[in-house]
């Protein structure tokens, strides 16, 4: 059990790291693009640009949340 816990912690530290909001931002952006692709909402070329913009947008939101929660 201790080994499993340590193993899980190791991969959590490796993938999620210091700030879980980054992983959530990336996961959310990619999930939205996946849903749009599966639903056939637009052409794949447009989807790549939308995906890139969503990643930029969600990352910006995560870092703004970070700094807003530390307002003095």
């Amino acid at each position, binding site marked *: 059990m201790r080994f499993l816990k340590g193993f899980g912690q*190791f991969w959590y*530290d*490796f*993938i*999620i*790291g*210091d*700030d879980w909001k*980054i*992983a959530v*931002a*990336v996961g959310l952006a*990619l999930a939205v*693009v*996946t849903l749009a*692709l*599966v639903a056939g909402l637009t052409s*794949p*070329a447009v*989807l*790549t*640009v939308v*995906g*890139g913009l969503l*990643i*930029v947008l969600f*990352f*910006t939101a*995560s*870092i703004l949340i*970070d*700094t*807003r929660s*530390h*307002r*003095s």
Partner: protein
Amino acid sequence: MTGAAWGLAAATFAASFVEFVEALTIVIAMGMTRSWKSALVGVGTAILALVAFTAAAGYALATWLPESLLQLVVGTLLLIFGLQWLRKAILRSSGLKALHDEDEEFKEQTAAAKSAGEVNKAGLDWFAFVVSFKGVFLEGVEVVFIVITFGLSAKDMPVAILGAGAAGLIVLTVGVAVRRPLAMIPENTLKYGVGLLLASFGTYWAVEGIGIFGAGGESLSWPGHDWAILALLATWFLLSVALVSTFRRRTRTREIAPTAEVNA
């Protein structure tokens, strides 16, 4: 070598260099405060584990995984690593987080090593062994992902391996010579640049890899193909500059708390 090959070698060199410096700091801290033998056995075991991991991952990638799934998995990991680095670089440049200092990191590691209890297993100081193993393996896996992504993107794996290998060799040689953390390296600037590179390549690959969920399972294709990486690099750079400028202004007007208030 062509200009593109030099660029690839420089990118993998810089990204791997930072990872190797971090691993070196951990190993030196363990060696100096606990046991050199245990720390070096930890390094050796981590290198063996890395070789096994790389061989297994390489075999799986080459034989089982479709290209789009490989891009999605490796691209997503690289993107997360890159954005973590970029976030820290933005906060540090804005004065919202203390600058990374290998000497300070070394002090923290040695303090933790001194306060840890004595546990001996297989004739080794277990704390020194585990911390050294974990440090080298974690940083090493990141180097493996960097080499895979940069090498496959540029379709020149030998040059990517050469860049990472040269970085490892230089850090190891200087580390053995000076036996102290490499604090003179402009690590914050390097991390900023590497964060931009990883975020750009990661975005490009992760989004292309989403194609695995499409009808044919083929990778999506960016407009302009590889040139899109440059557009992504410019976008991440401009965003980081805009965020640093905004945070600096807010810090000056005391809207947000200054240095080291933002965690991690």
